[in-house]
């Protein structure tokens, strides 16, 4: 029998030593910890459908250079931070000094700040469940640290544009850490885009830590090109009465993977997780979410929708874990899926683990096709088939797109969706 594949040592040679000492040290330790780390195979339950799309050749281990040109990004009203290949580009970034808000790249932190951050990083994700995030911890070359002081409010969304420059083969490791003190508020938009056509891998980690009463909204738009493998992880920890909202919109690629883990650790905390995924051609998209109801009286509401065209494949795995002390938990999970062709595949799996006895936990999943009667209704009014298909498919996800709280993102998502539909329905 073949022995299980392990991470090539080529991936354990981080380039870029601009980080402050304590973060370099953290990175070194994390690297040591993943020597010979087994790579997921199809026998690895949480990578069952995606492991065959994970292609980590030694060439991909190369650290992508920090400079590059900016691809087509959102035009956004708000504050902006631009990263190329995981490295911040200060001259392309634009945000003011705001009282009570620190927005700083990792490379600019002094040793004390960096030491404090090093203590805090890597505390939101579960190493076993989100194994690929460990690679980010061993490889990040920069990152963005956002700290909101008590009651600080970021008055406009902060856009973080992560562009990967696929003009040479390699990988990038974007990293974000958000520390929201009591009753602070912010909206963060992460946009992942690419330019160039060489094979690259983007491995991201974003962490949010919300203190009591903090309110944070995270929007994540994944729209890189066809040569990009994207493996992202988001970890969230929430103290009492804090609220976290997540809106993820993903367009398929050779491999798209997002792990989202939210831990409700203080009473009265709540989260709302929305996700939309569209795939076409031979694309693959895999969303794994996990909500930990640790404390009592917490709410979670999760709605994910997938649309798969052609021979593409979408995966949704939604785990809800209600701990023994989490009485009066209220958890709702819903996943609806739309197959646009007979060659497409969608796999959905709810995973509920409930150890408390006084909880409300509901889940539902459906997989369907466009409704023929609705289609007949539309075309009987003279609407062309392609347009009718588009209207019905849009309808399937509109409810979620309309909930994205940043208009610029809604607009950008609509435009990209239109492109998607134009391609998905061109044969009809």
């Amino acid at each position, binding site marked *: 029998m073949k022995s299980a594949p392990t991470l090539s040592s080529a991936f354990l040679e981080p380039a870029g030593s601009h980080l402050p000492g304590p973060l370099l040290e953290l990175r070194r330790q994390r690297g040591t910890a993943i020597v010979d780390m087994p790579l997921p195979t199809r026998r690895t339950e949480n990578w069952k459908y995606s492991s065959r799309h994970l292609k980590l050749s030694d060439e991909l281990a190369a650290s992508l250079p920090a400079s590059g040109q900016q691809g087509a990004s959102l035009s956004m009203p708000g504050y902006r931070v631009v990263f190329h290949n995981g490295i911040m580009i200060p001259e392309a970034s634009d945000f003011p000094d705001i009282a009570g808000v620190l927005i700083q790249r990792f490379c600019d932190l002094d040793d004390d700040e960096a030491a404090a951050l090093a203590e805090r990083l890597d505390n939101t994700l579960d190493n076993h469940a989100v194994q690929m995030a460990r690679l980010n911890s061993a490889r990040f070359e920069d990152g963005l640290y956002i700290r909101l002081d008590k009651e600080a409010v970021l008055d406009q969304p902060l856009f973080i544009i992560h562009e990967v420059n696929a003009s040479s083969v390699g990988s990038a490791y974007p990293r974000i850490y958000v520390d929201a003190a009591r009753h602070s508020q912010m909206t963060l938009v992460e946009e992942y885009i690419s330019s160039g056509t060489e094979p690259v891998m983007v491995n991201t980690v974003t962490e949010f830590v919300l203190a009591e009463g903090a309110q944070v909204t995270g929007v994540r738009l994944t729209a890189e090109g066809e040569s990009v493998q994207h493996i992202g992880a988001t970890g969230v920890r929430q103290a009492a009465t804090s609220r976290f909202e997540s809106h993820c919109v993903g367009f398929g690629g050779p491999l798209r993977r997002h792990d989202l883990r939210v831990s409700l650790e203080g009473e009265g905390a709540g989260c709302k997780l929305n996700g939309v995924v569209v795939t076409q051609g031979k694309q693959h998209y895999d969303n794994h979410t996990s909500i930990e109801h640790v404390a009592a009286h917490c709410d979670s509401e999760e709605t994910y929708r997938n649309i798969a065209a052609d021979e593409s494949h979408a995966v949704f795995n939604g785990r809800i874990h209600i701990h023994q002390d989490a009485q009066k938990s209220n958890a709702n999970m819903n996943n609806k899926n739309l197959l646009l062709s007979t060659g497409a595949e969608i796999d959905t799996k709810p995973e509920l683990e409930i150890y408390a006895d006084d909880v409300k936990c509901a889940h539902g999943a459906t997989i369907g096709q466009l*409704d*023929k*009667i*609705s289609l*007949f*209704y*539309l*075309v*009987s*009014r*003279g*609407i*062309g*088939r392609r*347009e*009718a298909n588009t*209207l*019905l498919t*849009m*309808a*399937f*996800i*509109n*409810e979620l797109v309309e909930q994205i709280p940043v208009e610029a993102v809604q607009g950008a998502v609509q435009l990209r969706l239109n492109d998607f539909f134009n391609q998905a329905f061109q044969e009809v």
Partner: protein
Amino acid sequence: MLSIKNLHASVGGEEILKGINLEIKAGEVHAIMGPNGSGKSTLSQVLAGSESFEVTAGEITLNGENLLELATEERAREGVFLAFQYPVEIPGVSNLQFLRTAVNAMRTHHGEPEMNAAEFMKHAKEVSRQVDLDPAFLKRGVNEGFSGGEKKRNEILQALLLQPKLAILDETDSGLDIDALQVVSRGVNALRAEDRAILMVTHYQRLLNHIVPDYVHVLAGGRIVKSGGRELALELEERGYGWLGVKDEEATAS
């Protein structure tokens, strides 16, 4: 305008229409009545081009054009309109977007410029008042959460916006209270025009008190078994369908 000759249609191998012949001239209003299961709704759906049914024989022409060769959307653009018995709810598509897309598809087909959102909104609001539908319904999902009466009014609204040559109204009166029936009838009467044919399919004759047809046909067992003027509807109301059916024939024979 509409000519149906020896039309046979089946679903899942079972023949529902067994040789329909019907001629409707421009400006005329015809009513098709018949007991449940007689094939009334099938006829409406087949005319509109539903793919649920297979036409096995016969022909349908509209102003000389062979409808059977046209896809559903092409028939609609040539002027066929079906008001559904059960209008479909489509959450996520706004009624306004739906109506505008339909109207613009029609305009494009006729070489007219598309209406922009503002123009269309104004137009749609006016027409919706004509059928007593609060313009707020334009912003809701297509038929989403509409009452039975609101759905039927939304159908008539569509007919008024699309200005078809042939309007087929499938059980437009079903599920309507008397007030709603009057509103809907007013809308249908507004559709009456010299260059338009209307085909009403109904189980009850009460609709025909409000929309007076020129001709009434009785459909039973997939065939038109009797045709007449308006008085036929009144007779049906009085005597039911029994006297036209097989049983009655047997009764006469005995």
